[in-house]
């Protein structure tokens, strides 16, 4: 390696435009969110006074915040779990030989490509309590005896959202799983069969080692996305009924933009950011451990 200044400086010069843009649109807003979180600034008008930890103390004692925290966690854990299980099962299915396999694999891209907002609207129409397809289908097949309000009942609105979210996102997990399974060398698979390994043993000892890494990455990405969820909930329920689907992102939106309380909205946003960061760090540690265990 030559070490003249130009060679050492060059990569940084090439990075410069990206770093400048990132500092402007991410770095500065992030720092300003931290500053705002210690003020009582309004969205428009006053720049606000420094109020110390007052916003955070009020949030810690607010049932709305804790409720939103629980709702967000429930949504993230359940929808990601459903997506992972369905995704792996479909990936295993696509490893079998059957007519139309390539077609089925092509279909998986469809829900992923569908815009999130269109997906939300589509499912809202399907769940419509009066004229929705779900009620009609379940009624005509005799599964339910009267029309149900799927999004209007606090006890099941979140579950209805999970179904809509999982339908859109399990194909991505399936595609990642499928790519991982294709990485299992054919002779290892054949050898396992020759050695008389059963279906479960083959899954556990032949495929799992290849699946684990990619699935972990998918798990991390999906959990973080689910924890930040806003679009699908905003379009389908706006956080209702009775705040039963109000996640943290929805709460931040209401606080900062509907009620224009920029200061306390920023402190709430900061807490969400910290939660996501902790989650990501935990996962990173888990991935490193899983990778170490396989070596």
């Amino acid at each position, binding site marked *: 390696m030559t070490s003249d200044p130009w060679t050492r400086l060059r990569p940084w010069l090439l990075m410069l435009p*990206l770093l400048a843009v990132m500092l402007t649109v991410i770095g500065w807003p992030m720092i300003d969110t931290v500053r705002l979180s210690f003020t009582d600034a309004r969205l428009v008008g006053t720049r606000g006074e420094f109020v110390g930890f007052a916003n955070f103390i009020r949030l810690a004692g607010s049932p709305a915040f804790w409720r939103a925290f629980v709702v967000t966690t429930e949504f993230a854990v359940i929808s990601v779990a459903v997506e992972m299980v369905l995704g792996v099962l479909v990936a295993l299915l696509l490893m079998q030989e059957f007519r139309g396999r390539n077609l089925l694999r092509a279909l998986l891209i469809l829900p992923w490509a569908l815009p999130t907002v269109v997906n939300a609207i589509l499912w809202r129409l399907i769940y419509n309590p009066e004229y929705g397809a779900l009620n009609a289908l379940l009624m005509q097949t005799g599964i339910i005896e009267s029309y149900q309000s799927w999004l209007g009942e606090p006890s099941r609105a979140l579950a209805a959202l999970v179904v809509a979210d999982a339908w859109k996102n399990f194909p991505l997990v399936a595609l990642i799983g499928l790519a991982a399974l294709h990485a299992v060398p054919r002779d290892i*698979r054949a050898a396992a069969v020759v050695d008389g390994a059963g279906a479960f043993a083959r899954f556990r000892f032949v495929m799992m080692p290849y699946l684990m890494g990619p699935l972990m990455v998918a798990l991390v990405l999906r959990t973080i996305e689910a924890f930040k969820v806003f679009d699908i909930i905003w379009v389908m329920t706006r956080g209702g009924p009775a705040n039963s689907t109000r996640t943290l992102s929805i709460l931040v939106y209401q606080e900062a933009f509907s009620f224009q309380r920029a200061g306390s909205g920023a402190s709430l946003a900061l807490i969400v950011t910290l939660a996501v960061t902790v989650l990501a760090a935990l996962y990173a540690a888990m991935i490193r451990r899983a990778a170490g265990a396989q070596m």
Partner: protein
Amino acid sequence: MEHRNPVFAIFVHVCALVVAVVILAPFVWLFIMSISSTADLTTKPLRWWPAETDWSRYRQLTELTQNSRGAALMSALLNSVQVAALATLAALAVSVPAGWAVSRNPSVGWSLSLVIGTYMLPPVALAVPLYMGLAALGMLNTKLGLALVYLTILAPFTTWLLKSGFDPIPRDIEKAAAIDGARLDQMLRIIILPLAAPAIGTAALFAFLLAWDEFFYALLFTSDQRAKTVTVAIADLAGGRVADYGLIAAAGVLAALPPVLFGLLMQRALISGLTTGGVKG
């Protein structure tokens, strides 16, 4: 494969059929709703196929008379195309050099981790200052402002995709070019960019789809036809007092058409892009 058991073969086919139906049924239903009359959509028991197909919603939504629903949706579609294209071009402009620099110089790798780390940040963490900043610059409700904000999402993502796209291009080619006296810009233009064209195309496609799909910032930072994107426009339509479900469905079909067609046509590139990150870890 290993199984020659006919029962197992039937089981596999049944499962495949179920998965196909689960994926397709909502799409098909969205389309059927869009061509059914309101009467057919609001009878009980529900009619699964309209008595007479009714294409009037598509006509209504593509008609451009002033202040009509059609004009609103069409201008939103156009805004989406412009914002997504602008944001994609800007993201590529900053991430092609950065992605190449990181790919060839592990010493700047930590800055890539930092950039990718920002991908985790929830948009709500940046929304309030971005709103105030855009307001101060008079860029609320402008396409340029929205495209700028979209860089927060697109640039980290394309940098990461491009870095993995540059990685497999052999360095020897670059060394040979350097020996032949190529300047940096010549090397990038004549040698690297053509070789990396597929990777750049994939990155552009992903960036465009991400921008097309975006809703949160568009909801916050746009307020009328001058900048409103299609995701906000159809959410408005569905959230308003419109009782014509067929019209909402038709708007959904129109908004979904570009990304779904892209998705089907560019399948191979998309799937490899979606899975490289996961598989390579």
